[in-house]
């Protein structure tokens, strides 16, 4: 039990009459990389938003890092150690890379409440370190995000997760809008995280990517988890069958 990082029990979210997420039971172990797949509207992002405290769940329980948790907001989740790259990149276009990385948790030289003096040097150094750690290459740190390509922006968002000591990283469709080379860059970052033993939940539509990168695949369909399979126990056709509903019923992970 102690090696379980994240566990949800009957996690449910209704938006009025829309049952976006229904009784999701999910587990993630230390060092594990799990993919979440499913059609558009299957409830993947909804699942992410409940775990990260962006929204309040309708029902169900969440355990994180050995404790039952009820995050009031994304900040609490982050403070507990969940770093998330949201589907709609949470970046500020007019700020440079270090400012984006440290947005909302700036390093401070003198604490003067809201007028605290920023420690720009320290943030810049930490940014460089994070970029090295994730192998993200951005030649000019002090340029605003606005002038960067989609891939670079995504890399900045991902580097942000690596800037702070985290116990779980969640990425919601990090490569959906990227070209081939930019996708390769992001995948390299994910491999680096795997080498470092950092657990990850990867929401993705890209079958090749998922089979390349993760240990386990969880399929969502119409708000429910319909499959939970180890990579070596399944293949692309099988997964597609679950995504489209051709194959139904709870596919349980066989005991190792």
């Amino acid at each position, binding site marked *: 039990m102690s090696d379980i990082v994240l566990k949800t029990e009957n996690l449910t979210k209704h938006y009025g009459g829309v049952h976006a997420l229904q009784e999701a039971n999910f587990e993630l172990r230390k060092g594990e990389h799990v993919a979440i797949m499913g059609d558009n509207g299957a409830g993947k992002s909804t699942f992410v938003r409940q775990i990260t405290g962006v929204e309040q769940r309708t029902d169900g329980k969440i355990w994180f890092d050995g404790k039952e948790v009820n995050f009031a907001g994304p900040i609490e989740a982050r403070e507990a150690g969940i770093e998330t790259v949201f589907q709609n990149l949470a970046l*500020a276009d007019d700020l440079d890379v270090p400012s984006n990385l440290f947005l909302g948790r700036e390093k401070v030289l003198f604490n003067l409440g*809201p007028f605290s003096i920023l420690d720009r040097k320290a943030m810049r150094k930490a940014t460089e370190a994070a970029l090295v750690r994730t192998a993200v290459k951005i030649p000019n740190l002090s340029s605003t995000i606005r002038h960067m390509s989609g891939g670079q922006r995504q890399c900045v968002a991902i580097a942000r997760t690596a800037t702070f000591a985290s116990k779980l990283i969640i990425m919601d469709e990090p490569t959906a809008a990227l070209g081939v080379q930019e996708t390769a860059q992001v995948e390299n970052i994910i491999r680096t995280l795997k080498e470092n033993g950092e657990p990850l939940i990867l929401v993705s539509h890209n079958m090749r990517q998922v089979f390349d990168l993760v240990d386990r695949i969880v399929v969502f369909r119409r708000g429910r988890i319909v499959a939970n399979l180890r990579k070596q126990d399944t293949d692309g056709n099988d997964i597609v069958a679950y995504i489209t509903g051709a194959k139904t019923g709870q596919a349980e992970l066989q005991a190792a």
Partner: protein
Amino acid sequence: MSQTSHGIGGLSYDAKKRPWPAEFNVFLALVILVGAFELIGRVFLGDSFLFNTRENVSGLFNEQRLQIIILQVSIVGIIAIGVTQVIICGGIDLSSGSIVGATAMIAMSFAQVATVNGNPNPKAMFIAFGWTDLPVIVPLLVAIGCGLIAGLINGFLIAYTRIPPFIATLGMMVTARGIAKWWSKGQPISFPTESFAAIGKGLMPVVIFISLAILFQLILTYTKYGKHCYAIGSNEDAARMSGIKIANHKVLVYAIAGILAAIAAVVLSSKNLTAQAGMGVMYELDAIAMAVIGGVSLSGGRGSIIGTVIGSLIFGVIISGFTFLRLDAYYQEMVKGVIIVGAVVLDQWRQRRRAIGA
């Protein structure tokens, strides 16, 4: 795995493509404008706009004109500092001119002398209570209190009831002007104490404007508060997701704008030695214009106090340039309108160009 095995995704980033600070362009516009007035003056009037041409006065520049330019923009400039941080934060403040009016009236009534030339001050509001010849700190605190309250109301309305800033501050604009008129039933309030009159004497407005501009340039650049202003104006959702307390921040931003308008009111009524209900009419638009001319984007996230200061100088140069060319005051207002619209059009054109990645 070695470091070089990662990060070779072929991402190209041209460091040279880094845009130069927008303030350079604004400064260039200022230089061109001064040059244009200089040229027109030399050709059509045989006089210099910038340089000293009088024999009986020494010095290279026409210092008198330069002083007038900066003096006449410095009071609105103080307001423009507050407005700049509001706009950077993605908002707008239409109430500052009326806050100037109301604050000037209220603060001045706590700054009056008891006797004028041996007779009781005919304008003294609180002479019956004996509230005359009060130390200067009293009207100052009253003024700051007025600005703070008005700003807090703006901020709370915008942050918690989600009323658009345009509407909330429009309401304050009308209400505060009403208070200014009601306060003394339309009568001007005059005869301030010497210490109150000293605040706006001579070049003091310029000194106060420049000091506040430097202070807020530093705040916007080097503090959390400043960083969060840019972040909220740039992408409010991202700022919220990052844990910035948006509502608190907005209340603070509008409160500071209110206090700066109040400081402008003190300086203005002190300089004029009187407060009138109509004081500060249209100042909010002049202040917004200074900011926009200075490169502050009305869609938020971009701009600086330095830009606004240069914008205010452009504003002053235009007005005194028109006087220099002996053009009627009516033309000044018309051209002011054209400049405001022109600056906004320029800003939107810039944004479109950015959006298509040019």
